[in-house]
């Protein structure tokens, strides 16, 4: 349940549409699964443009940096990505998901 995020979902969809209308490359990142204590609910989204500007969150700040980079790559090559971040994942430690959970994020280009 993510009712508190409902208004936020609108903001992200609106932002995605506005950026696309402005001719920018756009990608969406969506939390599709969480294990343990993850700060954001399944369905939380992040919208990213080709310059790396973003709005929304998928983790409360832990992994946004890494997700934004993958989103920019998805905008370039058009391929969707399924990203795993967890406490056992070295990269996740690097980007700071030390909050004791792990999450899976689907990244896709708006085409």
């Amino acid at each position, binding site marked *: 349940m993510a*009712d508190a995020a409902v*208004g936020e979902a609108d903001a992200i*969809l609106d932002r995605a549409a506005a950026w*696309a209308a402005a001719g920018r490359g756009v990608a969406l990142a969506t939390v*599709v699964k969480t294990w343990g204590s993850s700060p954001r609910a399944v*369905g939380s989204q992040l919208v990213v443009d080709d310059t790396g500007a973003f709005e929304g969150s998928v983790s409360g700040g832990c992994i946004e940096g890494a997700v934004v980079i993958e989103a920019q790559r998805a905008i370039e090559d058009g391929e*969707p990505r399924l990203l795993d971040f967890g406490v056992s994942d070295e990269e996740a430690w690097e980007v700071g998901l030390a909050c004791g959970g792990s999450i899976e994020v689907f990244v896709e280009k708006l*085409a």
Partner: protein
Amino acid sequence: MKAETLARLRTARAERQPIARVAALDGSVDAVVEDGEGPLPEPVLEVARAALKQNRSHDFEHEGGRWFVQVFNPPLRLIVVGAVHISQPLIGMASGLGYDVTLVDPRGAFATAQRFPDVEICDEWPDDALEALGVDGRTAVVTLTHDPKLDDPALHVALRSEAFYVGALGSRRTHAKRVERLVEAGFDEAAIGRIRAPIGLNLGGRAPAEIALAIAAQMTEALYR
């Protein structure tokens, strides 16, 4: 995500229509489900229908592949009847919690854009206002005027609706009189029992913002419990 999917999601949101987006996580399928229908296999449609009903986005497996259904139910809405001192902090808190808020008060001197700059204001009589807004299962109704002429008509509409939360400000004594009037108006015990009164969780605070917090907390509890 296809641009068409995004457009349909945004249209449904604007029209307060439930919609689900279904994607195969290898990127091969991207579709929406509206009114229980969409260009998807029946088992996938069933997953999407159930997800909408439970208001829960989740991943699932279908024919060996991983899929995701994302639920976009209509935004929560709060209708506040009465542009009073408690309304100001309540509107702010509810907005922060993701509610679309409408403030109803036909008394022009109360509901001014100056006192309430960040909210949609409706100056219709409360029953007309609520009928026009359409109270659904994702709507909370809170009456704060202390004036039966204004609160009661709003409660009549709210109690006949599927509102998930109906709260009325006033002491136990005020509420007892309110109950008498509602009985007289033909409402049964079950309907009247839906009214949260005295309103709000019993947090102990008496300041307007503290009462607003108690109401917002009780709305949240009603939503999830």
